[in-house]
């Protein structure tokens, strides 16, 4: 199924909630809508579902214009942040409800199959209120899957679940989506979740669609500073610099030797991911001396916040490292690992993929 948004906009009163955008979703794949709260994810999803109409533009399913068609006449299933089930029906009846509407035979078997996929087969005889949050959301997901709609919209479906449960359910969902006969749209505020879901990502910011493409592609080649900001966790380090013939001269710091696109000049912003900053001296790396402001240990990584002459920089170091506040530290960056954005925010240089020099 191909869902296409053609030049849609959404105006509410005097406010433009969604700026004009055109988006052709990759059919039968997952598209992640990534953006902070208020970026426009839910507004966009409501238009995709037919719950709301765009102020301008068209929504197409395959070739057909469905712009004015209400949600109940479209074949769409939705899952929300809140766990929504029929409270008076047992889990089995909840899952079966779309099948009943369709007049399916062998409902029992279908319900058991879906329940097994979502690990709720032992709760079929209970009411939703007797289940934990994670189990309730599994029921809602099973019901959405039971609908068998060619378009499935999930609006931050895991946000109200525990961290670990989120991890489990996300993995199961990824496997269910991989079956590949449903176009899935999944909204999240978390860059890490987008990467784990894979598929395609549309980055939204303040009602604008900034970039759409394969998820890893968008992460590694953000078209603009705004995309890079939205799609990085921990936040990308951003340093002011000036383009010169030798590379980028960091303001108040060293030169990053590199080849810039022909005709680059003037002020630029250098972006570095926290994971590209190191502490061991190596050939070809540029040194950024400073002192430790804070060290956060997550177990697998240590995040060191360093104040340097070029600004505050965060380094993500593998493993547990102990630092005292105020300690001298020198961070090292290979120029090939830097992103460079022009004064207009457009990407000038992206690091070569998977090729960090050692």
């Amino acid at each position, binding site marked *: 199924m191909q869902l296409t948004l053609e030049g849609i906009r959404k105006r509410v009163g005097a406010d433009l909630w969604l700026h004009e955008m055109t988006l052709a979703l990759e059919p039968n794949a997952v598209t992640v809508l990534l953006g*902070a*709260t208020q970026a426009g994810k839910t507004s966009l999803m409501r238009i995709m579902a037919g719950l709301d109409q765009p102020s301008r533009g068209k929504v197409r399913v395959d070739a057909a214009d469905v712009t004015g068609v209400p949600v109940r006449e479209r074949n769409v299933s939705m899952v929300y942040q809140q766990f929504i089930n029929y409270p008076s029906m047992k889990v089995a009846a909840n899952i079966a409800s779309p099948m009943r509407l369709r007049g399916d035979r062998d409902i029992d078997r279908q319900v058991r199959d879906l329940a097994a996929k979502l690990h709720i087969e032992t709760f079929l005889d209970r009411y939703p209120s007797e289940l*934990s*949050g*994670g189990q309730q959301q599994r029921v809602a997901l099973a019901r959405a899957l039971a609908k068998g709609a060619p378009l499935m919209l999930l609006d931050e479906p895991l946000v109200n679940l*525990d*961290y*670990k*449960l989120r*991890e489990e359910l996300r993995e199961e969902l990824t496997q269910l989506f991989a079956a590949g006969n449903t176009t899935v749209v999944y909204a999240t*505020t*978390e*860059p*890490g979740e987008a*990467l*784990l879901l*894979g598929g395609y990502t549309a980055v939204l910011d303040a009602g604008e669609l900034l970039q759409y493409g394969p998820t*890893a592609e968008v*992460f*590694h080649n953000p078209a603009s500073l705004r995309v890079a*900001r939205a799609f990085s*966790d*921990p*936040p990308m380090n951003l340093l002011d610099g000036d383009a010169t013939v030798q590379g980028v001269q960091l303001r108040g710091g060293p030169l990053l030797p590199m080849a810039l696109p022909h005709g680059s000049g003037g002020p630029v912003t250098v972006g570095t*991911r926290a*994971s590209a900053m190191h502490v061991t001296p190596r050939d070809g790396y540029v040194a950024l001396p400073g002192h430790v*402001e*804070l060290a*956060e*240990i*997550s*177990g*697998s990584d240590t*995040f060191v*916040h360093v104040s340097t002459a070029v600004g505050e920089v965060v380094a*993500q170091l*593998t*493993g*547990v490292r102990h630092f005292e*506040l105020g300690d001298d530290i020198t961070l090292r960056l290979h120029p090939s690992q830097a992103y460079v954005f022009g004064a207009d925010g457009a990407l000038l240089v992206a690091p070569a*993929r*998977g*090729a*960090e020099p050692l």
Partner: protein
Amino acid sequence: MARIDLDLAHSYLPDPKGEEDFALLPLKMSFEDGGAYALLGPSGCGKSTMLNVISGLLRPSQGQVRFDGQDVTALSPQQRNIAQVFQFPVIYDTMTVAQNLAFPLRNRKVPAERIKARVGQIAEMLELSGQLNQRAAGLAADAKQKISLGRGLVREDVAAVLFDEPLTVIDPHLKWQLRRKLKQIHHELKLTLVYVTHDQVEALTFADQVVVMTRGKAVQVGSAEELFERPTHTFVGNFIGSPGMNFLPGRCDGKQVEIDGGQLPLPAGHAVPVGEIKLGVRPEYVTLAEPQAGGALRCTVAQVQDVGTHLLLTAHAGAHPVKARLAPSTVLPSVGEPVWLQLMTDHTCFYKDEALV
């Protein structure tokens, strides 16, 4: 500031019988004066119950709560002198930011000069100085939550500041900033802080000591490093880390472990009991190995994900998944192909009946 000692149990039922009737099983625990603690666990693990017992919102059905040796079990949060920050902003919309921050001090009749100084200091730390005279009503959700945090931290004389999932409503970018602020404030103010969360990154980065809880029990108390390197229980191994520790069931004969038909010699210095055990190894420590290498197991590639800064490999050893976090430049066999993974490392742990050996 106070040292807090718990020696108690709590059940919401009038006549608890089995373990499952207790929200908190009998426990003894101490929170040092000036320490930063996190209570971490899934919903229903008892972490909020423990927080409410510390604050005085809930009286434990058995045992005592002591602050600096004094029995405070029967005292209210006000009497215990506790400051609290909740999931959602609790502020007065009609007041300015400064008035909101000053409120807990005014209530305690702190002199005006002192209030001004302290409000200024807290606002500076939370980067609210520019908004002190603005009404709280017009502010964004994260700014409001910063005010809540500020109100929790503004009094110097509190016994402890308790946080109940304070960053839940905050976007990922701001979480980084606020977590950082909290940590810096802890360094500067040396308050006793207890922080409840289900988010391990929040818990581990914020706290000096993390209490990992499940089913009413504190299963391990330790630093981020201890919980990551030597989880004392498989629950902790799985709960801490993202993805969690890999566990592979095997049989140990004292010298080597048999897993899925492979014979893996034990690393030197590991005394592992004979019989059924589980090998635990974190995805961060699993590396690619040459075929037949000692300590390596032949697995099958099931999935390779580019998670940005790393590749995440999921392989199968028989029916069991093994995950490995690998450098982005790693070249991997295709899905369905064999891959040899090194599982016996200095960081490998062994478990018998789910407990570390």
